[in-house]
């Protein structure tokens, strides 16, 4: 049995007085679960929540929930959410004084941020300069290195294209080639044999050109079986910066996160302090304003290079995301901090009003991304109607979703349709709650990954917290559909037969008496 949870928030944040804020309406320039999530806090604070939507999202939860919903158009549904001018016009039309970009779309677009400010509106995010600095991986890495924080040994082509191959060779094998303009794992190549270096650089360049229209590359030391650990930070742009602990995001498929949790099972107290302080230091060094995430790559054991880990593990700065993260809820669950509220407060000009010592956590939280996809078929996206939706309920269970029963999952957007977040007194407790919640989650009409997630969290390596970013590739049997027990097959065929009109009609056409006689023949 799972233990009862304490309900007191452990971190006290100032109660905002929204009557003094420079805006009374916030427009959410996003869709799906994150639009719902942001609207929830906006409305909780007593502000009005507006949302823009493409026709493909008419009737979704965010549109129904918003105080004002304004339709936007575009060549494709995604294009409409990327149309900054149209979104700003919508904000002005409904009297919104601020725009929250959510994640993805325009959330890290410097031009959009500037246009919002030029229109006299508040951008719920960082300054344009901060987006610019952290948006370019190469410049961000250089900045962080110069500020004295650990980065992986690397070579950047732009520094001196003529000596790039030489400098790449000096980084040593194994190394990773990445497009400078890249993201989402596209165009990355691992080189284990330096004899193949030049050939792989050429391939990486043509892929970068194809995916991003930019063939510039950089290489860095590749860490075998690395973990992805990131740290939530909050800054007010007025000198106040805190970290809000780490999140472990190592369970990934196709370089995309599936399960995120906090605390990380990989860190001891000393390492946790060190990585969290590093993240806060990076945010402090740029006078950061907004919620943000500093991502690190984490290697087990001793650092082959510098001494930034004391043998239990080492980490290098990867990148900083200057926005709210998909996996932010786990941080909220263990600290009691409403990160969207903090974003709104600092965008309104308030200071954090608390320091690092005030940020406390309790228990363990895990988030599961519910994807419309078929894990057994290479995680390919699925589509279909949401005929029945029974979200999981109960203590320690949070369901962040943008879909409703009667809606439709289409291929127009990302296949992530919801997030299940659980909180337990410790990791085992959280896993137990997660299994129950995943089992209780009913979504009929479109295949999702809930059964796969249950197989994943039952795996001994996951239970032991012993995972890395290549864990699912190394264990393909977790994604494979297990053989159906004979009894389950019987139940499925019975339920299907009894729910299929032509079958019932044929059976019912035979009178009862006849059926009774038939029984004798059987």
């Amino acid at each position, binding site marked *: 049995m799972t233990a009862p949870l304490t309900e007191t928030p452990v971190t006290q944040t100032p109660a905002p007085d929204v009557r003094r804020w420079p805006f009374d309406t916030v427009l959410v320039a996003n869709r799906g679960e994150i639009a719902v999530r942001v609207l929830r806090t906006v409305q909780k604070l007593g502000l009005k929540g507006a949302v823009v939507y493409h026709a493909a999202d008419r009737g979704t939860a965010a549109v129904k929930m918003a105080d004002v919903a304004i339709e936007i158009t575009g060549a494709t549904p995604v294009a409409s959410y990327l149309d900054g001018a149209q979104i700003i016009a919508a904000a002005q039309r409904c009297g919104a004084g601020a725009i929250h970009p959510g994640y993805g779309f325009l959330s890290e677009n410097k031009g959009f941020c500037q246009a919002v400010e030029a229109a006299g509106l508040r951008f719920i995010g960082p300054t344009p300069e901060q987006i610019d600095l952290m948006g370019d991986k190469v410049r961000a890495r250089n900045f962080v290195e110069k500020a004295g924080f650990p980065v992986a040994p690397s070579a950047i082509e732009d520094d001196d294209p003529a000596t790039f191959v030489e400098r790449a060779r000096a980084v040593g094998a194994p190394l990773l080639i990445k497009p400078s303009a890249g993201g989402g794992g596209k165009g990355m190549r691992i080189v284990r044999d330096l004899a193949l270096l030049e050939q792989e650089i050429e391939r990486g360049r043509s892929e970068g050109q194809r995916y991003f229209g930019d063939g510039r590359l950089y290489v860095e030391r590749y860490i075998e079986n690395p973990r992805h650990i990131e740290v939530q930070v909050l800054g007010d742009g007025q000198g106040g910066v805190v970290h809000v602990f780490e999140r472990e995001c190592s369970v990934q498929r196709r370089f995309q996160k599936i399960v995120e949790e906090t605390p990380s099972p990989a860190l001891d107290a000393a390492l946790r302090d060190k990585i969290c302080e590093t993240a806060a230091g990076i945010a402090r060094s740029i006078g950061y304003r907004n919620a943000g995430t500093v991502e690190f790559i984490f290697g087990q054991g001793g650092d082959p290079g510098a001494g930034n880990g004391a043998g239990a593990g080492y980490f290098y700065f990867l990148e900083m995301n200057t926005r709210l993260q998909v996996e932010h809820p786990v941080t909220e669950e263990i600290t009691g901090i409403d990160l969207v509220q903090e974003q709104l407060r600092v965008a309104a000009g308030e200071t954090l009003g608390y320091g690092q010592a005030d940020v406390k956590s309790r228990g363990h939280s895990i988030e599961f991304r519910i994807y419309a996809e078929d894990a057994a078929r290479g995680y390919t996206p699925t589509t279909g109607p949401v005929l029945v939706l029974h979200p999981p309920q109960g203590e320690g269970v949070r369901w962040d979703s943008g879909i409703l029963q009667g809606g439709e999952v289409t291929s127009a957007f990302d296949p992530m349709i919801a997030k299940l977040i659980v909180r337990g007194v410790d990791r085992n407790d959280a896993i137990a709650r997660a299994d129950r919640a995943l089992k209780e989650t009913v*979504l009929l009409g479109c295949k999702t990954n809930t059964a796969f997630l249950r197989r994943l969290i039952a795996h001994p390596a996951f239970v032991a917290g012993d995972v890395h970013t290549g864990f699912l590739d190394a264990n393909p049997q977790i994604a494979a559909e297990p053989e159906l027990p004979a009894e389950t097959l*019987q139940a499925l*065929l019975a339920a*299907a*037969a009894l729910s299929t009109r032509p079958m019932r009609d044929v059976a019912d056409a*035979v009178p009862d008496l006849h059926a009774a006689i038939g029984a004798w023949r059987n």
Partner: protein
Amino acid sequence: MHHAFKLGDAEHNVALSRSAQAYRLHIGDAVLDVDLAVGADGRAWLTLGERHLEVVVATRGDDVFVHVDGEAYQLRYRHPLDRLAAQAGGSADDHIRAPMPGSIVLVSVAAGDAVTKGQTLLVMESMKMETTIAAPRDGVIATVTYEKGQTFDRDALLLSLEAQT
């Protein structure tokens, strides 16, 4: 009369008949007393011989969706006539269906075009990857369902070849 459901790649033959109280399900030689009491919101109580199970059921067209033991499954009812047609005429290769949802990047052929095996018929994009659909055999294009830029769901009929004579 025998009916069938497709579950994954497997097809299962079943028959249903009345019993004095409810129904009997015939799977191969096995016969089970079955019944389904449907409640609100798709929730239902399934009787399966001596067992009673809580399930959730929804249907759309020929698709039956069932949630049982914490997992959701999709079964597709196969009309007896369709199954007959599939056995009698043409090979399954005459109808080219989408392996996953996506959109059309390029259509290289039109209805009536003669094609040779391996010839590019169309290019689709899914999950940011382009996939080329090539002719499975020599033949003539019967129908082309989509134009460039249109989106489709998994199993959608993309194009078909005229049946071989």
